[in-house]
């Protein structure tokens, strides 16, 4: 069928192609809101909401109210302010780790997938072994042993982020390599690098985006996990640290109100994770139809 779509302005098409479908899907909308909240929390949050450092033992474990929207912690401090102030670390470290992991995974994956043959098999073997290493216990132990700084944790997390993507990318590139339009490029003598980055590359975008999101939330959980278990005490507002104190030091779970606050904390984490993953799913749905030829 011929010349149907009039060329509307680029911006309008961008809106139609990406923004509208994401907004239309329930997940996309939810995710978008979540991410907006996250960004706000980490950037302007701490300036808007001052950290409550007053110790008011009489207010401890208070339930959510207008004055304290998320209730109070074990020392009567406003939990919302703790959460907002802790968000920077809880978001930033996994973010950096994920970026490093993605870059690493992409390098290995693209190379292995495109070159194929022995190289691919060797690299796949390495990634497979790496994947079977139980990441959390290892990170846990190394975090305990190594100097405790945010950077160390970020690197540790990154170390276990790359293999999954590498393996999947290698498979994806391997299959894309056999497509007709790639064969046409090879026939016309276009360079391998060009084909890899400019022809195959755009097809990998949805893939990488989704992996980024899932890796991010996984790293976030790992980070909170190791802090929760008391291995790497970082910033006291780190959510993991909060949970650590709540559960272990102050035995929050044994107190009715305390349990509520603890589960509230955990729910916040779950909701954020869901939001990020939903957004990535919505984005993926948006990317894929555009790359599928339709007529």
């Amino acid at each position, binding site marked *: *069928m*011929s*010349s*149907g*779509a*009039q060329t509307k302005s680029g911006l309008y098409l961008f809106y*139609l192609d990406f923004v509208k479908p994401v907004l239309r899907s329930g997940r996309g909308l939810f995710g978008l809101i979540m991410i907006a909240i996250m960004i706000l929390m980490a950037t302007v949050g701490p300036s808007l909401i001052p950290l409550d450092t007053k110790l008011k033992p009489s207010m401890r474990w208070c339930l959510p109210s207008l004055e304290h929207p998320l209730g109070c912690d074990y020392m009567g401090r406003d939990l919302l302010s703790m959460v907002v102030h802790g968000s920077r670390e809880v978001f930033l470290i996994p973010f950096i780790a994920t970026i490093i992991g993605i870059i690493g995974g992409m390098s290995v994956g693209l190379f292995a997938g495109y070159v194929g043959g022995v190289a691919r098999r060797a690299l796949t073997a390495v990634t497979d072994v790496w994947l079977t290493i139980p990441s959390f216990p290892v990170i846990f132990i190394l975090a305990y042993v190594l100097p405790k700084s945010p950077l160390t944790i970020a690197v540790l997390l990154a170390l276990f982020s790359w293999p999954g993507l590498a393996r999947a990318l290698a498979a994806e590139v391997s299959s894309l390599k056999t497509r007709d339009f790639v064969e046409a490029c090879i026939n016309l003598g276009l360079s391998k690098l060009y084909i890899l980055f400019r022809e195959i590359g755009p097809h990998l975008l949805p893939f990488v985006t989704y992996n980024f999101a899932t890796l991010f939330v996984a790293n976030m959980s790992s980070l909170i996990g190791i802090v929760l278990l008391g291995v790497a005490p970082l910033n006291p507002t780190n959510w993991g640290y909060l949970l650590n104190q709540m559960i272990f030091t102050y035995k929050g779970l044994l107190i009715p109100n305390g349990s509520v606050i603890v589960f509230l904390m955990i729910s916040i984490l779950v909701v954020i994770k869901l939001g990020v993953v939903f957004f990535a799913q919505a984005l993926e749905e948006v990317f894929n139809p555009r790359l599928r030829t339709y*007529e």
Partner: protein
Amino acid sequence: MSDEVRTGKNFKPKLELRNLRMEYLVREGSIKAVSGVTLFVDEGKITAIVGESGSGKTSLVETFLKILPRNARIRGGEALLRLSSGEEVDLIKADERTMRRLRGKVIGYIPQGAQNSLNPVLTVEQHFIETLRNHGLWKPESSMSEIHSMLSLVRLDPDTVLKKYPFELSGGMKQRVVIALTMILKPELVILDEPTSALDVFSQRVLLNILNDVSMKYRNTMILITHDIPVVAELADRLAVLYAGTVVEVGNTYEIFKEPLHPYTSMLISAIPSVADIYVKRIPKPVPGEPPSLLNPPPGCKFHPRCPYAVEKCRTSEPPLYEPKKERFVKCWLYSGGEKL
């Protein structure tokens, strides 16, 4: 089988499509896939609907079979099906329950690529039993012999084929199994969408023969949808040419080939290279231009941008369906002298 002469308006067609309109909603607007299709399908005959990609032929069938995707909207028209029991059903207005009652037992549909829709984990025999059971037609005493004779009709050896799985059969054989499965329910109306497209020349030839045999034996009404012009020349009694979602010419196949009335029909037939060309000293002539966009169809007669006979009137208003000769309908201003439908 010669054409029976219709006697006035008393003869009622098996399927009567009147002014069907349907469009797909897409992000750029709406695709007018079916824009005013009026077509009478006679009982006991093979009618072919011929059109190129974008002509709307599959959309048309999906419209009156009510198997449209979610973004489709039926905008008007009726599709009257006259059952052998005397009952008349407007398929467009029929609800899903009625449609389900009709599908299979009254209306058989073999979509494009049907040979790939066989269940890979069931044998041919199991396919038949399941199909008959689902429609409540399984009779332990007689069904097996019916299956045997049906398979023989489609030129498959029952003893060899019944126990086989789909992957053990060739494309042509699978296609015949699908036809047999459809026919075992003895539907009054059978619709086949591109039945020969994926087949090699010999399998295609055999399939045409089989369809002819089936038609002769069961005297059911068949609608054949295809873009392959030569195929319809032999098999179809009547031919309807579809262009940009509307019928531009209908009539007896032989007469249309002998003397196509609509410029598109004439150009389409001349544009197809054939092995016969050398024998009859014919040189194919291309049709200029491109098929129109159904998103923004041209105004007036949709063929006018490519038509060598186009005049001002063709650019502004769409012609009605004229009947310049008995049983021959053309949607073209050139024939405005004749009777209007």
